[in-house]
């Protein structure tokens, strides 16, 4: 392995070193191939395994073949420490991923994302003193890796806390300015560090200050963002972690890290943009958080709310031919996905066609509803995307809205003054009848009235989604 193959740019290269680089190339290709397969339903699972294989390969060859600048391999003692650390992480990661409930998936994704960000920030922080004074490129990537990794870490932790209900939304008008000032300060400090001719060892105070400010920024950046914007934030934080890893890749001039990281960054960015589009808002708007509770122009068109009894609902559903269920975050909170599936099989048994209409931003992360309903064994073909279900809505006998609000609010079409004006919605109001299951008359995240609830064809069923569905299922069974 240590046999010298030749000399390139005044440096000798050995068999081991060449094999290592080859393995990185292979790992990078596996990442690309895996991600490609992951974006098609039939091949997704294989894609995930290919990407995992690429990771294991890169880890193994690094452990066995990596040499430091002096040509020394990784000593045996260090290897044991590395293996022990990897062992701890593996056991923890495995147990967590097996035990987690599907309803907690958004939290888990945030938590794993936080740990990736933390790893990137730590690596950058530890490598900073090794950078050469005046080497603008390597100091730049180190500082960027540190900032982005730290922001991704603390931001994801706050996102985790919010999704888990441990942290509330804190929206104060001054926070926007505070965040801008903080970001500006970070950029100035980072710029100063990058162009400073001093050796890094003398600049440690600045790097610690940057670490602290970045962690703080992650917190204050995610804190004001509302629950309904979580799909955007989670995708964005995911993209950031990828970029942080890529920056660290530049420190080691490691192409597998660079390519893998940038790939994740680009993929995360696409998802972010997709989520923004589904809400008809710009990314800047989400981050700055222009959604106030005010909604001044939302007209007070408060009509009468009409409730429906469980038995009437049971009759209505049993005599329908075409039913569409529109799930939202309320379904996830109440963990009502299994009972929803019981309802649809029960109705199918009576010859009723039941489909689920999924809004792209329903829930708290991209694809949240799909995961939940998949857990409850709802067949894949029954989940219909917004654009496919809307033209068919006038033929639907009953639309059941379970714990969703803004994604079915017709104000998005009719009221130019509404904060959600222009957002694509599922046209529940075009169905012949609408049943809305809601905990109470609370307004949606956007803090605006939902005109759908006051329409003549709308009937309300108040209560926890799971309890209500359970009673409804019992009622239909007895019918």
């Amino acid at each position, binding site marked *: 392995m240590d046999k010298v193959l030749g000399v390139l740019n005044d440096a000798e290269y050995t068999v081991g070193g060449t094999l290592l680089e080859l393995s990185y190339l292979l790992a990078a290709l596996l*990442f690309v191939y895996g*991600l490609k397969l*992951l*974006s098609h339903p039939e091949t*997704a*699972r294989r894609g*995930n*395994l290919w990407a*995992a294989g690429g*990771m294991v390969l890169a880890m193994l060859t*690094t*452990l066995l073949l990596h040499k430091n600048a002096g040509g020394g391999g*990784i000593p045996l003692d260090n*290897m044991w*420490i*590395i293996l022990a*650390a*990897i062992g701890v*992480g593996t056991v*923890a*990661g*495995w147990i*967590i*991923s*097996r035990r987690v409930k599907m309803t907690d998936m958004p939290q*888990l*994704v945030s938590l*794993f994302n936080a740990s*990736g960000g*933390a*790893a*990137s920030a*730590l*690596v950058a922080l*530890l490598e900073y003193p090794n950078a050469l004074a005046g080497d603008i*490129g390597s100091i730049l990537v180190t500082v960027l890796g540190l900032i982005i990794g730290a922001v991704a870490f603390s931001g994801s932790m706050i996102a985790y806390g919010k999704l888990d209900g441990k942290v509330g939304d804190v929206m104060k008008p001054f926070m926007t300015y505070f965040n801008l000032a903080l970001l500006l300060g970070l950029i100035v400090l980072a710029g100063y560090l990058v162009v400073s001719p001093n050796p890094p060892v003398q600049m440690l105070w600045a790097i610690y200050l940057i670490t602290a400010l970045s962690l703080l920024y992650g917190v204050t950046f995610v804190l004001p963002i509302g629950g309904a914007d979580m799909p955007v934030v989670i995708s964005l934080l*995911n993209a950031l*972690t990828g970029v942080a*890893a890529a920056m660290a890749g530049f420190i*080691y001039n490691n*192409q597998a890290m*660079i390519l*893998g990281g*940038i790939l994740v*960054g*680009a*993929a*995360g*960015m*696409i998802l972010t943009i997709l989520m923004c589009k589904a809400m008809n808002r710009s990314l800047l708007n989400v981050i700055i958080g222009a959604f106030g509770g005010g909604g001044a122009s939302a007209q007070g068109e408060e009509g009468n709310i009409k409730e429906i009894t469980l038995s009437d609902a049971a009759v209505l559903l049993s005599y329908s031919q075409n039913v569409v269920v529109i799930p939202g975050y309320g379904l996830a909170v109440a963990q009502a996905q299994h009972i929803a599936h019981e309802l649809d099989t029960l109705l199918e048994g009576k010859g009723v066609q039941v489909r689920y209409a999924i809004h*792209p931003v329903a829930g708290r*992360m991209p*694809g*949240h509803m799909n*995961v939940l309903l*998949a*857990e409850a064994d709802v*067949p*894949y073909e029954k989940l219909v*995307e917004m654009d496919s279900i809307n033209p068919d809505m006038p033929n639907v006998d009953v639309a059941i809205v379970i714990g969703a609000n803004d994604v079915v609010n017709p104000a998005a079409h009719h009221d130019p003054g509404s904060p959600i004006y222009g957002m694509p919605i599922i046209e529940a109001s075009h169905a012949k009848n609408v049943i809305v299951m809601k905990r109470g008359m609370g307004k949606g995240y956007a803090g605006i009235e939902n005109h759908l609830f006051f329409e003549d064809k709308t009937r309300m069923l108040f209560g926890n989604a799971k309890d209500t569905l359970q009673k409804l299922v019992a009622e239909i069974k007895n019918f």
Partner: protein
Amino acid sequence: MESALQFFFTYKEAIFIIALSIFLGIQVISNVPAVLHTPLMSGANAISGVIIIGGIILVGHTDLSTFSLNLVLGILALIFGTLNVVGGFAVTDRMLEMFKKKKK
């Protein structure tokens, strides 16, 4: 202007890789159906755990003769990185297994 050009020339290979990887990422992911949004995100998230290679290099060449804060932080980075990698891939697999099961 001149210094910007100089910067580009010094790091031209890196800049090429970044530009092409972004394009590749966009191409590979475009047209992903909504069903796969979550698995794709968590799978991609696991790939960003590639930072673990940095952790291995870091701890691998840390001097063990004296106890240092660097070693502790390096080990921490390794644990976090592994958590990201193993947890991410495992949970993605679990989700996709679920999708598969109900497809038949």
